């Protein structure tokens, strides 16, 4: 079994600030983290390593500093880490990203054929959930998104059974390998790095490939050129113009505050009262 986990290094968006004048993201000093959803995918892959002795390769596309994120994955127990980094990848949208990653996975498969690809449900900076399906489609892998649990896996029979979150319930799906799985949050908890793996990570050199090494013969399908979508404008969300009508409950009892609110509420929005007794 060979499992590839795709991860992305993202700015910790809880610490991101927007420049009040230029409306640009102020990244300075914002720590970079592994996209939290990807850690769920990594843990699931490591469990396959525990159970089935699967080989785990982590893959990322990004600037050179993303090697740090990949090293962390080695510390958690991944076997190999590959970073594809090249100026031709700059400005990739989800279609171009999935092209680059799928091409690289195909290249990786030449050395050790790939049975499964794991991705996080989505990233916290882009939030699109599109890269996973894009990779699956390009590789012709079965696409299993929003997976909460791997129920059964039989590498010899090339069979897998998963629980997939769907609208209004859970689908129990039987599928085949190779497949691509995106994992939803809450499915597992990432293990602690072991001492041995931490030492290994410290000495480990992340494999860096440019587009050629990654087996990409059509660089024009990557980056800005290969992206059908173009960002035309970035701006701060408009404020809801009205400021709240304030009721100061610190100088009144809770009951008085509640009565004041209801009086105001029903005077200005009489329909609400009907809504409440309906």
């Amino acid at each position: 079994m060979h499992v590839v986990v795709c991860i992305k290094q993202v700015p910790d968006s809880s610490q991101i600030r927007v420049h009040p004048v230029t409306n640009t993201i102020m990244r300075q000093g914002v720590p970079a983290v592994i996209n939290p959803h990807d850690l769920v995918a990594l843990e699931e892959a490591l469990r396959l390593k525990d159970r089935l002795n699967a080989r785990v390769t982590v893959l990322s596309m990004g600037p050179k500093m993303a090697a740090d994120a990949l090293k962390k994955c080695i510390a958690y127990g991944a076997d190999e880490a590959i970073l594809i980094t090249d100026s031709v990848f700059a400005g990739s949208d989800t279609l171009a990203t999935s092209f680059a990653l799928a091409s690289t996975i195909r290249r990786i498969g030449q050395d050790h054929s790939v049975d499964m690809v794991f991705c996080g449900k989505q990233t916290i900076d882009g939030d699109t959930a599109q890269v996973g399906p894009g990779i699956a489609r390009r590789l012709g892998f079965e696409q299993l998104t929003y997976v909460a649990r791997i129920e059964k896996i039989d590498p010899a029979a090339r069979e897998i059974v998963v629980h997939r979150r769907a609208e209004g319930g859970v689908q129990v799906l039987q599928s085949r390998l190779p497949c691509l799985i995106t994992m939803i949050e809450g499915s597992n908890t990432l293990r602690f790095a072991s001492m041995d793996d931490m030492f290994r990570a410290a000495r480990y050199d992340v494999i860096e490939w440019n587009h050629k090494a990654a087996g990409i013969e059509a660089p024009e399908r990557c980056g800005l050129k290969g992206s059908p979508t173009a960002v035309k404008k970035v701006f701060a969300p408009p404020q809801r113009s009205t400021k709240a009508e304030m009721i100061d409950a610190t100088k009144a009892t809770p009951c008085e505050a509640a009565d004041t609110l209801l009086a105001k509420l029903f005077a200005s929005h009489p329909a609400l009262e009907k809504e409440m007794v309906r």
Partner: protein
Amino acid sequence: MSAKTSQTAPHGLEDWRGVWVNVELERGRVHPVSWELLGEGRKLADQLGVALSAVVIGADDSATDAACAEAAFYGADSVYVVRHPVLAHYRTDPYTKALTQLVGRYKPEILLLGATTLGRDLAGAVATTLATGLTADCTELRIDSETRSLAATRPTFGGSLLCTIHTLNCRPQMATVRPRVMAMPARDTQRTGQVIQETVALSEDDIATKILTFIPDAAAEEAQLAYADIVVAGGRGLGGPANFQHVKELARLLGGDYGGSRPVAQAGWIGLDRQIGQTGKTIRPKLYIAAGISGAVQHRVGVEGADVIVAINSDPNAPIFGFATYGIVGDAVRILPALTEALRARLPTRAEAI
């Protein structure tokens, strides 16, 4: 010199015409986001002067017929329907095949899908197959008059910023929109649409993924949050899970539903499916009551569609007061029960019914 370069469309783009909405039909039920999208699609189609069409993919049964009729009531001029036993439950492969073939056949310029688990799974596969642009979770869709292209606005960086995205050289222009972001259009049962039966060659033998079972969410678990007219929510300011009872009680009295901010959902005070905001649910209630919630931007984007927002927060400078309709500065743990009491006194019918 005014160098206004006229955007000439790359060859062939003008062959693509019409606005399409994917109608999400699962186990006999249409997801309401489909109608919300038809409402929005109607505006885009009118602005472009083209037809609005619905695509219904489903089993060969009466639920599929009903979905086609409903699509017309909600504004579709025509309905393309693919019916087949293998389409009874959603699976990526047959649905992708059906939708991509129809798109190839009729060449719509815009294709909209709901940003549900089904819609996002399908949209990603379809856009990749068609090698076209896809913009996720849009909050606003407009037609750019100069380029006649779709200007799709979406939150980015967890809601801190908005960006407007165009797909200039590929068709169709694809976008997903979350439930409750667009308003529900009026349902007009006098409207009719032309229903066009389509055939796509599908066979169970070609589909590697089988559905073994479907475990529906327990009725009690199935949060109706996104569609509730009244929502009461709590945040970390409530101090602990025990105090969340006050939120649930008020919601129950009002016949509404309850939810919370992300930290509260992650701490397990409420179920994960009750998280409101950018990475949770978008709500559009008539009344939203937020207790002990700061009003961070990621929370705000999920509640902005509410008609009236009441915020209870002990900090007079909490960001939530910047967009609430009414603000009460005080301790939510004391004010929530007082509010429940005051309402119980005022709403005798419901108070008796409970």
